[in-house]
Every structure is written in C-alpha cells, then in structure tokens.
C-alpha cells in the first residue's frame, strides 16, 4: 500500500475577516491551534443492562486559537484585533487557514463568517531573561467550521 502524500504546514496561509472581505495575515500570525469540535453526548442506564445507553446531539461551538508575532506600530494586525476585541458586546472576527497553502486544489477551513466572535486576546508581554519574539494570542469562538477548496 502506497504511503499518502505527506504535507507540512510550512506554507500555511492564514486570513481574517472583519466585515465581508478576507485579509491575509500570513506574515503576522504564527500558529493556529487545531480546534477539536465535538457533539453533545448523553447517556443513561437501565437496571437490566451493564452498559450505558448512549446518545449524540448537536455540534458544540469551537474555539480557534491563533498566535501572532507582535510588532510596534498601528500597521500590525494586533491593533486591528485589539480594536475588534474592544467593541462593546463583542466584535465579529472570522479566521481562515489553509494548512497546505492557498493554491489551487488545496483546502481551507474557516470559522463562520457571520457569527464568529473574538472572545479572548492575550497582549504582548516581556521577559528580561528571554530572547524570544514577542507574541500575542487571540481566540475566536464559532459554531461551525467550513471547508472550501482553492480554485
């Protein structure tokens, strides 16, 4: 049996959407933590059986975590995320990532473009004993993740 074609995410594309258009941030974001989406589950027991009666419900919302490398200056997308986060009662923000790159025939996965919300923002910090780059983190909560092919 032939091995499947291995892919790496070294060429991954990442975009965000605030409004209606996708904006590329592949030069700014560094990590997309793969979200795990689950369904609600239920279980019950009866006296006559030793195993559970299991049930499955609807898909639960998912949180997508992205980390970016921070740079000084308002041109950095961090400040766009910060402005969105500071929107009263929550700001809409969708994320899209293409694990194998955004070229034709490859796939992208994206959070809902209408109801995804930025629910957490970790500000850049510092450690005098570290030479690491300064990073920030954002979390987007969405009820669904959709796949689309690049064409």
């Amino acid at each position, binding site marked *: 049996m032939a091995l499947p074609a291995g892919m790496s995410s070294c*060429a991954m594309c990442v975009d965000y959407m605030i409004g209606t258009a996708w904006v590329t941030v592949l030069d700014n974001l560094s990590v997309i933590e793969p979200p795990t989406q689950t369904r609600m589950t239920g279980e019950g027991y009866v006296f006559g059986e030793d195993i559970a009666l299991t049930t499955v419900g609807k898909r639960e919302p998912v949180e997508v975590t992205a980390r970016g490398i921070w740079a000084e200056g308002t041109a950095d997308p961090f400040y766009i995320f910060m402005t969105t986060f500071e929107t009263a009662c929550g700001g809409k923000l969708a994320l899209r990532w293409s694990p194998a790159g955004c070229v034709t025939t490859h796939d*992208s996965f994206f959070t809902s473009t209408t109801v995804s919300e930025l629910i957490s923002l970790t500000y850049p910090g510092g450690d005098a004993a570290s030479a690491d780059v300064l990073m920030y983190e954002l979390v987007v909560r969405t009820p669904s993740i959709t796949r689309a092919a690049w*064409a």
Partner: protein
Amino acid sequence: MSEETKEAQPTEEPQEEKPKKVGLQDGRQTPVYRVLQMVNLTSDHQTYRPGQIVDLSHLPQESIRYFLDRHIFETADGEPANVPGNPAEPCKNC
C-alpha cells in the same frame, strides 16, 4: 446643433461603459461557472458560496477541467460575482 452634440457626448460615454462584460481583450466574452461547493478563488482570495457565478479566467483550462470533474463548478450563464484577474500574491512558499 453643435452645442447639443457637445452636451450629449459626456452623457453617452458612461452609458457605453454600463453593461459590465467580462471579456478578453479582443472582445470575446469568457465563460463563467456556477459554484457548486464552497470555494476560495486564488484571484481575489475571497470565498464564494454555492449558486454564485464566477469568472475563472485566472485558471488554466486543465485546472478548470479538474474542478468541473469534481463537481466544484458547472458551466453557467450570468454576471460573475468576482472580478477576473490574476492570482493574488499571498501564497509565497507554495
């Protein structure tokens, strides 16, 4: 009479531009396609939903055939929702 023609000229020019045709430089119209599955176009990096009409003139014919075979697009008529153009630059290493 000459004054009338002078006044009429500026209004006629935008009228000619109104019908938005997606065409090649020689005037032929390019075929357009209906989206059957959610796609992102590399030409503008935007997402198009099933039912929308798109222009795929940024793709080579073999790529269009690939997508037609996989029922991602079908041939259609209508005004495309996207602006035809060259693939956008974002993907640097792939």
